[in-house]
């Protein structure tokens, strides 16, 4: 009874909650178009579109991986580090195969590029295998296994980068610049990541809805013990899910490397795993497993990126400071809205008891602080007071209703 079943039936391909996301995306775009002082959606529609499309595609690629892992009842916290490792593996492979060209900023040749990319995907497979082994054979909880690789892989990537640069170049370095034309092409043509994302989304959607493996993934996430007793090789299904998660992160890592023209194990992809999980959750995945859809995750990713873009358009300078804040707020609001039916029906209140009372000033201060940092002190105080009044009225109404 954790979710209402009527909202699970698709209406014209998408479920009601997914249509709501479509509407939310449209509203966010419309608001930005109106509020943005530079009117960049009006004057540079293509540039804006390109920006959002690239960011969405890059995040979306490994959000699809996160979706599969989450539906299978797991979690992969290591995606951001996998991104860094993937770029580093590709760059170090190319450096080892063609050190002179790499250092001279010349083309390294198709063989080295292909070897680099394949090595990255292979490492993705190995990391996924490691996760599955830690989880099924050593029996670590997924959260702990991937927390270990979250910290471990990034430092491994840095060590790999430093020892390879020490061996093949005059100086040890934690950065490898990429100047091969192949990666320049990938960087300059947004349609490439978008197409890869599109194809991957369709493949994942087919996998989850139309294959036996996909059904087993849902079953595993819904009830692991019952899945085993139904004759499903749960360890193999997990193996697949974690490999899919790590390999999509590896693929995304190649794009990030191309995009930034550098493999930078220290910072590349840092924190991105949480964005991927957020996109999946906004799109309707349940962290308890068994629930989630590809269209949901795609829309969740678009929504997240559109909102982040909107804030950067509206705030202009230093908007990246707020990215985490926005992701956090969006996740909370999206998941709350998904259960708005329950609140409306009256079974539950948003601000019950003593906790609800303390939540009012907390939320009001938070709201006031955010607004005053972005729009100035006076407006901030007004917003805080406004929020406090609104929430108090809501609480009064709720307690009236339940009495």
């Amino acid at each position, binding site marked *: *009874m954790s979710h*209402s*079943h*009527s909202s*699970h*039936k698709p209406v014209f391909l998408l479920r009601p909650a997914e249509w709501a996301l479509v509407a939310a995306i449209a509203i966010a775009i419309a608001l930005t178009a109106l509020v943005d002082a530079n009117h960049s959606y009006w004057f540079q529609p293509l540039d804006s579109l390109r920006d959002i499309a690239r960011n969405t595609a890059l995040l979306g690629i490994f959000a699809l991986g996160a979706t599969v892992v989450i539906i299978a009842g797991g979690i992969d916290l290591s995606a951001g580090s996998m991104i860094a490792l993937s770029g580093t593996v590709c760059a170090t492979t190319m450096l080892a195969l063609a050190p002179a060209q790499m250092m001279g900023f010349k083309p390294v040749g198709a063989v080295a590029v292909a070897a680099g990319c394949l090595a990255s995907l292979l490492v993705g497979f190995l990391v996924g295998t490691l996760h599955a082994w830690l989880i099924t054979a050593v029996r670590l909880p997924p959260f702990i296994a991937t927390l270990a690789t979250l910290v471990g892989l990034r430092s491994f990537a840095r060590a790999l980068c430093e020892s390879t640069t020490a061996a093949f170049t005059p100086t040890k370095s934690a950065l490898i610049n990429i100047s091969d034309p192949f990666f320049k092409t990938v960087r300059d043509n947004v349609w490439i990541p978008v197409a890869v994302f599109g194809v991957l989304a369709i493949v994942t959607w*087919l996998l989850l*809805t*139309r*294959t*036996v493996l*996909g*059904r087993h993934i*849902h*079953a595993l*996430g*819904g*009830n692991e*013990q*019952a*899945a*085993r*007793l*139904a*004759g*499903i*090789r749960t360890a193999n299904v997990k193996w697949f899910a974690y490999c899919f998660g790590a390999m999509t992160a590896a693929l995304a890592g190649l794009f990030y490397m191309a995009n930034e023209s550098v493999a930078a194990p220290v910072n590349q992809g840092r924190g991105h795993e949480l964005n991927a999980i957020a996109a999946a959750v906004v799109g309707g995945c349940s962290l308890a*497993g*068994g*629930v989630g859809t590809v269209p949901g995750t795609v829309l969740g990713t678009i929504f997240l990126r559109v909102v982040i873009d909107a804030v950067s358009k509206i705030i202009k300078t230093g908007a990246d400071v707020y990215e985490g804040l926005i992701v956090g707020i969006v996740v909370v609001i999206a998941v709350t809205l998904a259960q708005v039916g329950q609140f409306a029906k*009256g*079974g539950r209140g948003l601000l019950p008891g003593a906790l609800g009372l303390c939540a009012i000033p907390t939320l009001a201060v938070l709201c006031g602080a955010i607004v005053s940092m972005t729009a100035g002190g006076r407006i901030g105080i007004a917003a805080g007071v406004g929020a406090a009044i609104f929430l108090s009225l809501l609480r009064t109404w709720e307690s009236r209703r*339940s*009495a």
Partner: protein
Amino acid sequence: MSVSIGTKAADHADAPAVVMRGITKRFPGVVALADVTLEVRRGELHAICGENGAGKSTLMKILSGVYQPDEGTLEIGGVPARFTGTRDAEKAGIAIIHQELALVEDLSVAANVFLGREKRTALGLLDDRSMHDECGRLLESLECPVSPATRTGGLRVGDQQLVEIAKALSLDASIVVMDEPTSALTESESARLERTIKRLLAAGTTILYISHKMDEVFRLADRITVLRDGRHVRTVNRVDTSPRQITSWMVGRELADHEFRQARTRGPTLLEVRGLTLPWPDHPRGYRLSNVSFDLHAGEILGVAGLMGAGRTELLETIFGAGEPTWTGEIRLDGKPVRFHHPREACDARIAMVTEDRKRLGLFPDLDVAGNVSLCSLSEALRGGFLSRRREEDLVAGPIRDTGVKTPGPHAAITGLSGGNQQKCIIGRWLLTKPAILLLDDPTRGIDVGAKAELYALIDRLCREGLGVILTSSELPELLTLADRIIVLAEGRLTAEFARAEATEQKIIEAATGG
């Protein structure tokens, strides 16, 4: 939350304990209850009967504050009440034992019994000792051998049911609702519960009792209410009616008696079990199963009787490759020794197993009805390598019809089905795999009388087609109706084997307890 407890006793001493008037409850696509009126007298045991999906549990969930009715009113002891949650109902003196067990697996038995009402010491710390002691007393009164310190998740479903019962009793409620409390209990545990019920009644407690076991209902009830399709059919005194009449009110027609006296022909040996021993480390007994040997033939139903903890489930799990792999002895399938390490291997050898604990070990809450039924036969729903919705619907239509699942459609949410109908889906799932050997661990748990008869007929038919069945059941009459032979386990050892002709309840109980 307009419940006042203080005044009710004085003002409404002779008011009925519960009056539910004009209750209507709708769920998406179904009207679970339509204008149901129920009056329960003080101190009586009021049984509620009805087919699977009739609305019994829904009515009791409204009484205990889990659901709010769409229409209708509630009076407790003559005082109008509106519950917004289970806490309100508890305050009004109503405790419920739910049909679906809802225990926190990682907490101890004592912690579960006092969950949300933990006892504190003078310093405000948890008073584990007194909770432990009181829980021990409650379990003792139920004659349940489980220690209050045991982790709940490690218990079998029957023991968990006893813990649920202890939890409800610990509330000291004046009205206790029992929704199929004995569905996972064997005769002797049920007998203990019956003694507890008699004690409660003697102390003036009012009890609402749901069960599909007619003999129980007729032993215990003062009055019986029958529901059909969400409607109140009638309420009668037990002494004025008969099980036959109640059943016909439940299903809305006369029910033909199924008789399987016509002997099945016994085919070749399918399965031989020799000296099966399953160790139980860290337990004084040392083994879960000890030196168990028997044969199963094609076209035969082998009944396995025994008390809770006798090793019935362990026996089936070991054969199915789902239990501990530490067993010794020999299992031969069609004459060849086998040792399954994973249920998959057993499935490939055409063995199927319907597990005892449907919520934990059988049901996939996020898959729809069709997905739950087709799960083990998905290869037959493929078209061009991909799952076809059409084929899946065609595939599951058969078992849904054969087992008589009552569902709004193949794509309804499985969690919206009543308990008995969920169970039928799981049986259907395994029948669909066309097994040669079917292991049934208490398969009719929570299934109504009519559907049970249909299921018996279905199993009988499959057996005549050469299926071999091993059946455990918490109900001896079920074993005596269905089984060709009955083996009895007591504390992990095989203590007796009866042919159908010589088996009686008395002999089986003696073998199960005496050892």
